[in-house]
């Protein structure tokens, strides 16, 4: 197994599950389950036990591997060289399971839905562009930018709202941008994170073929997960495009005065999406955007930037729900953390975070106190209560 030797480099210091100041636990699955095996070091040793044949594959082994949200906090906190490929190791261990066909039913169903139906919602391909109705964004045809929406933005109710609000900003700015609509294919980021590297390769190759055939050079993604796949993984398959997340383009448009943020007196805080922040290195653009909103009161949460607490939606968990809910689920902890800032709005830049946190707000029963809004909505004065 690739990266197997890394399992011998971990000496159980336990730093991986902590926040930067070691004041709190910052590993989503460890927060939820409390057992060491659900922390990165624990997973490392479990995988080592499987590699050395001390344990066999079991339902529990699968569950432990598949509850990792791939948030990358461990990569930040680990003090050994093995940090670089830490998540790759977990992915390799998952690929071993996938090859055997030994994956939890929810993970299996996610793969099958994507291979058979093209998306995890099993919705028809013909419905994929419906979110754009009435927004005025054109179908891509030689435009300067491709707006790549992704599975969640195309089919999930909350995701579609974000796709709409982001696209509206582009349309208002008069940008040359088009979307693929019903021709769009799943980016595959979470397929890869779950270890199905073969299905991922297929999706990557199909997407690259499609983008090249349509003359796509610049891609703006709604979803940081797609941003990660296109920027980091697709070049390995010959797909070289200029990839930006929508927050980066928003900042450019604001600086060029193509869009004018409406004033707002809201108190907000910002939640760094893992695939934009830790994986993507983009921390400043969203904050710069918020600084450009006249009157907006911004404060940081305790754990922010590289230290942000994941909403728990990564690693396919958004679709498989392997982690489950409950009071100690990362999304609910994050909402409580946001409330501590005294803010009324929790600003997000990822459709998965939006949905995870919105559900957590409802579970916490704090809908009247805090609202989840994406950056595009914040530019338009924020609130539609």
């Amino acid at each position, binding site marked *: 197994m690739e990266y197997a030797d890394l399992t011998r480099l971990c000496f159980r210091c336990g730093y991986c599950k902590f926040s930067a100041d070691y004041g709190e636990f910052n590993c989503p699955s460890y927060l939820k389950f409390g057992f060491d095996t659900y922390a990165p070091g624990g997973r490392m040793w479990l995988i080592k036990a499987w590699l050395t044949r001390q344990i066999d594959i079991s339902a529990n082994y699968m569950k432990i591997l598949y509850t990792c949200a791939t948030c990358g906090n461990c990569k930040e906190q680990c003090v050994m060289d093995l940090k670089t490929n830490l998540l790759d190791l977990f992915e390799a261990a998952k690929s071993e399971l996938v090859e*055997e*066909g*030994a994956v939890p*039913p929810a993970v*299996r169903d996610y793969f099958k839905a994507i291979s*058979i*139906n093209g998306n995890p919602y099993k919705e028809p391909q013909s419905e994929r562009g419906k979110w754009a109705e009435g927004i005025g964004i054109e179908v891509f045809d030689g435009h300067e930018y491709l707006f790549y929406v992704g599975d969640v933005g195309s089919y999930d109710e909350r995701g579609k709202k974000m796709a709409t609000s982001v696209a509206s900003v582009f349309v208002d700015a008069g940008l040359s941008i088009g979307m693929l609509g019903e021709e769009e294919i799943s980016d595959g980021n979470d397929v890869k994170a779950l270890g199905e590297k*073969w*299905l991922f390769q297929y999706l990557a190759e199909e997407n690259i073929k499609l983008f090249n055939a349509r003359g796509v050079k610049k891609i703006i993604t709604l979803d940081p997960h797609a941003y990660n796949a296109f920027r980091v993984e697709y070049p390995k398959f010959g797909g070289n495009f200029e990839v930006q997340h929508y927050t980066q383009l928003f900042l450019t448009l604001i600086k060029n005065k193509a869009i004018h943020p409406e004033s707002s007196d809201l108190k907000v805080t910002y939640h760094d999406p893992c695939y934009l922040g830790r994986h993507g290195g983009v921390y400043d653009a969203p904050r710069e955007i918020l600084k450009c909103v006249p009157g907006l009161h911004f404060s940081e949460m305790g754990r922010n930037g590289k230290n942000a607490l994941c909403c728990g939606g990564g690693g396919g968990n958004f679709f498989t729900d392997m982690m489950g809910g409950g009071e100690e689920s990362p999304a609910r902890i994050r909402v409580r953390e946001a409330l501590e800032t005294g803010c009324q709005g929790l600003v997000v830049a990822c459709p998965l975070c939006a949905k995870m946190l919105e559900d957590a707000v409802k579970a916490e029963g704090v809908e009247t106190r805090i609202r989840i809004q994406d950056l595009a909505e914040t530019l338009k004065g924020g609130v539609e209560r």
Partner: protein
Amino acid sequence: MEIVVLVKQVPDTEAMIQIAEDGVSLKTEKITWIMNPYDEFAVEEALRIRASLGGRVTVLALGPESTVTAIRTALAMGADKGIHINDPAAEGSDSLSTGKILAAALKDIPYDLIIAGQRAMDDDGYQVGAAVAEYLDIPQISMVIKQEIVGGKIICHRTEDGALVTVESDLPVLFTTQRGLNEPRYVTFPNILKAKKKPVEIKTLEDLGIDPQTVGPAGQKVTIVALHSPPKRIGVRMLVRETDQENAAELVRILSEKVNVSRA
């Protein structure tokens, strides 16, 4: 243990089904085809039995060229060999004829156990498993959610309306699967391609000694007169028992039967 699994290729459950011009068949051009979900349970169970008792798993399917994908998926899951009855004269066979054709093939295949899906998701016939068992004159046990083979006998737990029935029989037996029997394993695309190395025998009606006039359109004992799209589904089904407890019990019953929700 010689285990034979009956497999059918059906339209994907999320496929947009449209009725063809003739009014009695479906348009097949845009459909994604999958192995019948109940047959997946059958293949998985066969593999588990082979894992504990040893033996061989053979997959048997009747259908056009495209059916080979379902056979390859079963082989990729781990089945040892496939037999594909591919004959245009068999197209349009009703459930009884299908059963007759499969039974004819089974006369030449050694079996201790035959496993089939309780029904196919396209026509919901429910008959082929039973028909095959009758033609072979072997016992049939339907809707099995758990089975155990001990000393040449099989003990099956089967679901009936709101009840669980335990049935015992000598082998050979044909049993059909119910949701909850197992969770079928996942197969990666490369593994489906690798399965091309496993043998698949092709058979025609002539190989099986079947007169085409007794199957296919000519042999239909049941004819489709017309196909209609179902009326728009009502969004809500109201539970209107006398007490909350009765409503709750009814809800649990409905959910268990539809979704096989655990009672934990």
